[in-house]
């Protein structure tokens, strides 16, 4: 009798644990590891390699024009960028699973001035294990990923995590906001 009760309670506990988790959520193994290098062709035709940004804190944001949460955060991101411009920080947007005209319209619509490029074949996004956008990586001056955030970001987290990246503090876990699974 006691054993039966124990087994039933254990199964119920397992079920409750399963229901409390987001089955879509994929925990990234990349935090604390070196950021995968890449070379990105920017919308203005120039190319940019992540290695060129060594010595700077990199805010790497994956987005698409069809993703509502990306639109939600776009304006705030640009205003944060404008305020941070003087400092030792680089904002870099990577457009994925999109068409060039749509992406350009998005940048125009939200008046984005930080550098953006298109990941045409999805190589960079797979390299960063991207699955829900907007997805943002904070990379420290030595090229190590210190924090990852799936979903929309606001000023408090961005400023705190940029500061941590500057000091090379690796976050224990990743953050989560409202996101859109990629296609």
């Amino acid at each position, binding site marked *: 009798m006691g054993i039966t009760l124990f087994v039933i309670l254990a199964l119920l506990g397992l079920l409750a644990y399963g229901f409390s988790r987001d089955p879509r959520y994929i*925990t990234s*193994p*990349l935090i604390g590891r070196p950021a995968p290098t890449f070379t990105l062709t920017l919308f203005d035709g120039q190319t940019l390699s992540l290695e060129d940004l060594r010595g700077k804190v990199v805010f790497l944001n994956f987005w698409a024009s069809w993703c509502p949460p990306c639109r939600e955060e776009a304006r705030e991101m640009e205003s944060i960028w404008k305020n941070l411009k003087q400092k030792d920080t680089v904002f870099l947007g990577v457009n994925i699973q999109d068409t060039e005209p749509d992406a350009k319209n998005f940048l125009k619509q939200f008046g984005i001035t930080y550098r953006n490029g298109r990941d045409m074949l*999805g190589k960079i996004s*797979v390299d960063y294990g991207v699955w829900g956008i907007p997805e943002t990586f904070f990379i420290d001056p030595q090229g190590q990923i210190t924090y990852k955030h799936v979903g929309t970001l606001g000023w408090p987290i961005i400023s705190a995590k940029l500061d941590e990246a500057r000091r090379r503090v690796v976050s224990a876990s990743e953050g989560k906001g409202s996101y859109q699974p990629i*296609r």
Partner: protein
Amino acid sequence: MVKRVLITLWLLACVPTLSSGAQPTELEEQVRVIAADLRCPVCQNLSAADSPSELAQQMRAIIKSQLEEGKTPDQVRAFFVSKYGEWVLLSPTKSGFSLLVWVLPYLALAGGLIFVVFVIRRWARAKPNNQSKDLSPDLLQRIQKDLRADKAWDSKADIEGPHGPLFRERARLYTELRDLEFDYQAGRISKTDYEELRRGYEEQASVVLKELDTISPATLAEPAPESEPMGQTVTNPTSAGSRRTWIFPAIATFLLIFGVTLGVLLSNSLRTRTSTDDSITGDFLTGTSSQGDPSGSTVGAQDLPSLLAQGRGAFERQEWPKAIDAFKRILAMDANQPEANSYMGLILADAGHADSALTAFDRALSINPNYPLALLGSGMVLYRQKGDTDGGSQRLKKLLGTLPPGPEKEQLKKTIAEMGKGGDEGEGAVTQAGVPKESVQGAITGTIAMDPKLKSQQSGQGVLFIIARSAGTQGGPPLAVRRFERPAFPFKYSLGQDNTMIPGTQFKGKMVITARLDKDGNPVTRGAGDLTGAYKNNPVDVDSQKQVDIVLDQKTP
């Protein structure tokens, strides 16, 4: 004419087919095997081999390129694990915590079997003998004494005599009692169960003993009458019970087999939808095959040649939906398949989606930088639709280098030369200095007006298409198309040689001229609210007539 050009394109497409071979290679099979092990991060319940999502296509392309770089399948898997974690593996590694996933089901199965065995044993022992009888202490003592006696309870004569069944029943009950005692001492059975079962057996044994007491020693020796079958001479108190005990294992076995069969059937019959009209069940569950050919729930590398042939055939016959379906299925398997991407690019370019077309061509060129059809297609799209003469001629010059000498090469040389001149004139066109290009041979001009009745319903949005089709043809890409965004009516237009959809086609002869104001800007779909109109005196002989005015007077319901 259109057909001739299409066949030329097809011939061009065959050039790499001959060299690289369209047969599914070992590499493709390897890609499929690895992708089948990886979970698609977007759809979660499908493998990267089965998922039609863009991400899964990109993953397959990455697997392919890594294998081509010489990585082993394990290294490729490890790459994806390093990006997405162990989560990405459909079959977790057999070590560490993941080992539990492999071991637990077997442990659960073994536990379940042990449980079933115990339950069945209990059922088999529990005789459905509910008439509680008072056991006489004498009989009980006799039973205890018999059990303790270390000898056979019956002589051979007893067993073979006419009352043999009674003796055998007594022996059976004694054996059960001994076994029960043993199980209880060994701790295999609880005290309550032990006492209950023991009482049942003792009651049965006392009945048998009483019965035996009534038999005189004289009758014991008489031979049994032959007509009397042994089992029926005595009412066996356990026969009904033992029959019932077998019902449960039988039901359990049936349920197990039923469950396993259902599981196997379902998992073999469910498939991913290949189109919105498709169903997720099929094959041997409902007998329906998946839409389109080759039929079957999954498209494997072995279907590639036939799908390619199917797509090419449909393209040649200008059956666009069929061609798109075939190429899409190939791309679901291999996102960068050069031939399928090239054809998709041509179809997309025809439909006016220059950027998507260029993406498709670029995919093809990423695998084979000299793929003729992709070079031709991207060159023409860059030149005609994007106005990038340099980019276009660069691609075509690259193509020129790969072509063997022949009429195609000559034709291509001419096209490149014309591009260099500004590219306004088609093959054989006579250039007249100082004459505007609209009035060059074959070009027409005119005004598109809006029916006053429909004017109020027009929002000022939309894309105007002016379409010329060779008289007598239906379906397929038109001879020439021009596209204008947000036109203001009345709208002046011209249509000529440089608006033809397929390079080398001549803008001459009789043609049907129509116009459509498309709400969503996609020329392939005809949505409600699109306004259309046709020239009153269609077909027009563009060699003699230059002025073609059209009124948009029809509304798509």
